[in-house]
C-alpha cells in the first residue's frame, strides 16, 4: 500500500536533538488528529530509538540519524529510525527487557521494551559495523484523513 504522506528528516546525533526528533514526528502525525495518549506513545518510542543511536550506535562520536514517517490511508503510521553506527551483534539479547550494554547503571535497558509496548509492531534490522534500522508501526484509533491539496 502506498503512503498518503511521507516525511524524512535527518540530523546529527547530538543529545540536544532528541526533543527535536520527537516534536518533528509528532508535528507530522498531528494531521491525523491523534489522541494525547497516542501522541505520547509515539513520542516516547521515537525518543527511545533516537537516544539509542546517540548513546549506542555513535557512542564514540557524532553521526547522522535518519527518520522516515509514513502515513497510510487507514490511519496507520510507520516510523523508521536508522543509523550508520556500530550495529548490534545479538538483536535478540539486545531486545530482552533490562538488557543494556552500558556500564554505570544509568541506562535501564528498557528502550526496546518501551518501543514494543507503545507501538503495534517493532522490527529491528542491524549489521555489525554498518548500522541499525528500527521500524515501528502504529495504527491510530480515531477516524480521520490527511487533508490538503
Amino acid at each position: 500500500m502506498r503512503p498518503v504522506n511521507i516525511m524524512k528528516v535527518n540530523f546529527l546525533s547530538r543529545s540536544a536533538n532528541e526533543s527535536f526528533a520527537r516534536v518533528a514526528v509528532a508535528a507530522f502525525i498531528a494531521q491525523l488528529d491523534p489522541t494525547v495518549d497516542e501522541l505520547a506513545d509515539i513520542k516516547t518510542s521515537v525518543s527511545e530509538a533516537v537516544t539509542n543511536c546517540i548513546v549506542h550506535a555513535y557512542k564514540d562520536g557524532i553521526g547522522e540519524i535518519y527518520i522516515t514517517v509514513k502515513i497510510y490511508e487507514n490511519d496507520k503510521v510507520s516510523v523508521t529510525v536508522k543509523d550508520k553506527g556500530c550495529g548490534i551483534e545479538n538483536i535478540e539479547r539486545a531486545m530482552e527487557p533490562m538488557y543494556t550494554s552500558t556500564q554505570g547503571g544509568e541506562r535501564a535497558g528498557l528502550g526496546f521494551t518501551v518501543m514494543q509496548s507503545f507501538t503495534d509492531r517493532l522490527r529491528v534490522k542491524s549489521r555489525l559495523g554498518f548500522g541499525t534500522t528500527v521500524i515501528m508501526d502504529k495504527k491510530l484509533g480515531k477516524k480521520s484523513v490527511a487533508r490538503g491539496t
Partner: protein
Amino acid sequence: MEINNSQITVMSVRIDNSEGVVTAYLQGELDHHAAKGIREEIDESLERLRPSTLILDFKNVTFMDSSGIGLVMGRYRTMQLLNGKLVVKNASLHIKKVMRLAGLDRLAEFE
C-alpha cells in the same frame, strides 16, 4: 486534539530540604539529554544532606522516556544505601505507564 505551537522545554529541578526529607521538583521533558544534569543535581543534594526520604515530584514533567526510569532506579539504589525510602509523586498517567514497564511501582512509593 488541541495543540498549538513548536516547542522544547528545558528541563530543570528545584530542590527542597526539610527535616530529613528532600523533595526534588522536576520540570520539563525528562529524556537522556536532560537526565544527566538533573541526576547530578539530585545526587549532590543526597550526598550532602543524606535524607531519610527522597520525594521526586513529577507534577511538571511533561514527557518521560526510559532515561527517566534510569534516573528513578539510580536514586532508589542510593536511598537504599542511605537506609531511606523513595517516593514518586504526581506522576501523570503516561509517566506511570513508562514506570510500570520497569516495575518501578513495586520499588518506590507512589503518591
